[in-house]
């Protein structure tokens, strides 16, 4: 038995200060202002005073690199990072080597995740075979293996005809199409946001329109097919506006933002540090402000890490030559709190409830109540800390050495502590 004592608990009826009692794999009680604190000789007590208690975090966008690139990360090291970051479920992106485009490959990822046992590893499937954008992946086998979210992430599914067919197929199977929106022609081999900083640095730029034109086109296909569509790592104010309008029109559209896009803008690239290189790139301060607003007002549904590990030696090159992406699992909660000053209700919506709903994960993202699965996280929203070293196998984080507010104190997966830190 574990008693999480005195935290601010997100329940189906709102936020209350309570003790959460966990027994076995479930929450058995949420005791508000208990006259007599529950005593049991075998109970482990976690002091959560001043902390937020809620459903374990869910990441819609994690690159675990296994199979194929285990020198960057594997399912075990990535699961440790996830648990330390407060996550109880992560959706593993399918751009592994080989890509997750057949049922048995998805099963391998899920089984490895279950064996490690630190968080639920939910495989996403590729949209196209080999992520080559030419033929549809083996949707039926992938769905059979438990896949509900399909994406060619890392690349864009450019062919509108193929995307239309994918949408028509998957709309009928209660699945989500997630798009990494980047028109290759407009992207033009850019290394950073196209704007004042790229012009000064003489670096080839990637314009905001490379993202926005793809999203605009895809939304027209959503209108045609009725498919459920999710925009990955929204990075521009223009994309936010497209999503706002699509939602107002009642289209089945959701969106995520990456924590680094909430915190940093394109001026960071002046350091030439590859830890600020990611796709989509860091945009302008105006874009950052709009992303924060859109996350808080719900236009953007979820925070998703786009955790993308790369080994130190791969980063020891110029910015232009460095690989794309940065890690994020262990800093996502803190970065979101630091950047937006988000309240507890919206925090759990954005990092747990919405992503669990988007990924169709019934055991995750549920407000804390007797009988709910004990997938829980304890977050201290006011603690400050400075990241120096991560559980992830790779250390390519833009948050290294930056002070953040908000610290994950404990994570429970089905009643078992997967991460614990003393205050």
């Amino acid at each position, binding site marked *: 038995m574990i008693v999480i004592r005195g935290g601010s608990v997100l329940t189906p009826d709102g936020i209350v200060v309570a003790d959460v009692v966990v027994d076995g794999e479930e929450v058995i009680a949420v005791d508000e202002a208990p006259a007599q604190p529950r005593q049991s000789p075998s109970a482990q007590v976690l002091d959560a005073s001043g902390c937020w208690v809620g459903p374990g975090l869910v990441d819609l966008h994690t690159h675990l690199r296994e199979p194929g690139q285990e020198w960057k990360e594997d399912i075990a090291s990535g699961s440790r990072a996830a648990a330390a970051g407060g996550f109880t479920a992560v959706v593993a992106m399918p751009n592994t080597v080989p890509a997750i485009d057949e049922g048995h490959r998805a099963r391998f990822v899920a089984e490895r995740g279950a064996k490690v046992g630190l968080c639920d590893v939910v495989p996403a499937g590729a949209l196209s075979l080999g992520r080559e954008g030419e033929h549809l992946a083996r949707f039926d086998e992938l769905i059979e293996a438990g896949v509900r979210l399909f994406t060619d992430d890392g690349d864009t599914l450019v062919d509108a005809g193929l995307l239309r067919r994918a949408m028509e197929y998957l709309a009928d199977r209660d699945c989500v199409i997630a798009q990494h929106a980047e028109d290759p022609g407009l992207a033009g081999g850019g*290394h950073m946001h196209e704007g*004042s900083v790229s012009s000064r640095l*003489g*670096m080839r730029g990637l314009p905001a329109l490379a993202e926005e034109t793809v999203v605009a086109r895809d939304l027209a296909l959503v209108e045609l097919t009725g498919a459920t569509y999710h925009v990955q790592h929204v990075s521009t104010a223009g994309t936010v506006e497209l999503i706002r309008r699509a939602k107002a029109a009642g289209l089945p559209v959701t969106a995520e933002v990456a924590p680094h896009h909430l915190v940093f803008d394109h001026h960071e690239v002046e350091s030439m540090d590859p830890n600020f290189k990611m796709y989509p790139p860091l945009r302008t301060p105006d874009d950052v402000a709009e992303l924060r607003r859109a996350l808080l007002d719900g236009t953007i549904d979820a925070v998703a890490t786009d955790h993308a590990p790369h080994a130190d030696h791969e980063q*020891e*090159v110029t910015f232009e030559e460095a690989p794309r992406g940065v890690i994020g699992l262990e800093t996502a909660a803190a970065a979101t709190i630091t950047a937006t000053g988000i309240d507890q209700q919206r925090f759990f919506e954005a990092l747990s409830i919405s992503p669990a709903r988007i990924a169709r994960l019934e055991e995750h993202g549920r407000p804390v109540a007797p009988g709910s699965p004990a997938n829980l996280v304890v977050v201290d929203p006011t603690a400050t800390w400075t990241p120096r070293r991560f559980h992830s196998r790779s250390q390519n984080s833009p948050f290294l050495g930056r002070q953040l507010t908000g610290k994950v104190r404990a994570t429970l997966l089905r009643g078992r502590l997967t991460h614990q830190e003393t205050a």
Partner: protein
Amino acid sequence: MRHLLTIEGMSREELEDFLDLADEFLEVLDRPIPKVPTLRGATVATMFFEPSTRTRLSFERAARALSADVLTFAPATSSVTKGESLKDTALTLRAMGADLMVVRHSATGAAHRVAQWVDVPVVNAGDGAHQHPTQAILDSLTLRRHFGKLDGLHVGIVGDIRHSRVARSGLQAFSTLGARVTLIAPPTLLPLDMTGWPVEVAHDFDDVLADLDVVYLLRIQQERGGATGFTSLPEYVRRFGLDDARFARLRPEAVVMHPGPMNRGVEISPHVADSSRTLILDQVRNGVAARMAVLFRLLASPGEGT
């Protein structure tokens, strides 16, 4: 000053310090034995990841004129083709005894990265389309020696500005030293966002031609996509080449500069290239002295002048 990575943010005093030193070194280069013992025992490594014979030779000539030893890193025959990282290459040359590293690379920020890894001064000899600070210093030196000062000069930089590190570092140096700078190019060859740049912009060469004191011509950077800025080479020559007709319309005291290598018949006509009003060979000569000034300032007296 510890490294020379960019002209951006450099003060007029810092720039003039380099020019004053370079003037002194030009005298050295005119002596029967054009060599001083100032940097005897020091080793200058040139790391040129992008082929550039003239800039490398200029740095090596400058190092030897100061009696420094030279380590030449030649990528064609090096470990870069065997997958060695930039950091390992830099640390290897440092371990061989390099006291200063001169870095040329096709990517922005290469010299900045090397400066983060080694404990010796780093000189940026050109990084992508970003900066080429010693070119800006030698060009400023050339203009100051010819005109006496840069204050009030109208410098027109013509051509592939978008892909040009020479333009980016040059315009900053010229304007800091008091010149008025106009960038002359079609929109497709200009940087996309020049907010706050100390420049004027002209899309028509003929509009501003007769007002210029200095015509600074650039090469089309084919290797960075410069040729995508127009639809045929004859079109570029017709609109932006300094041909004989345009040359005749220049003010009598106006001069022509080019960082080299030149493409005769494209941005510059053969007649103009050979004219006595071009300062192109002065730029080459002054380049050695400017680089001596940089090596001297960073190795012999890093505390002074900054």
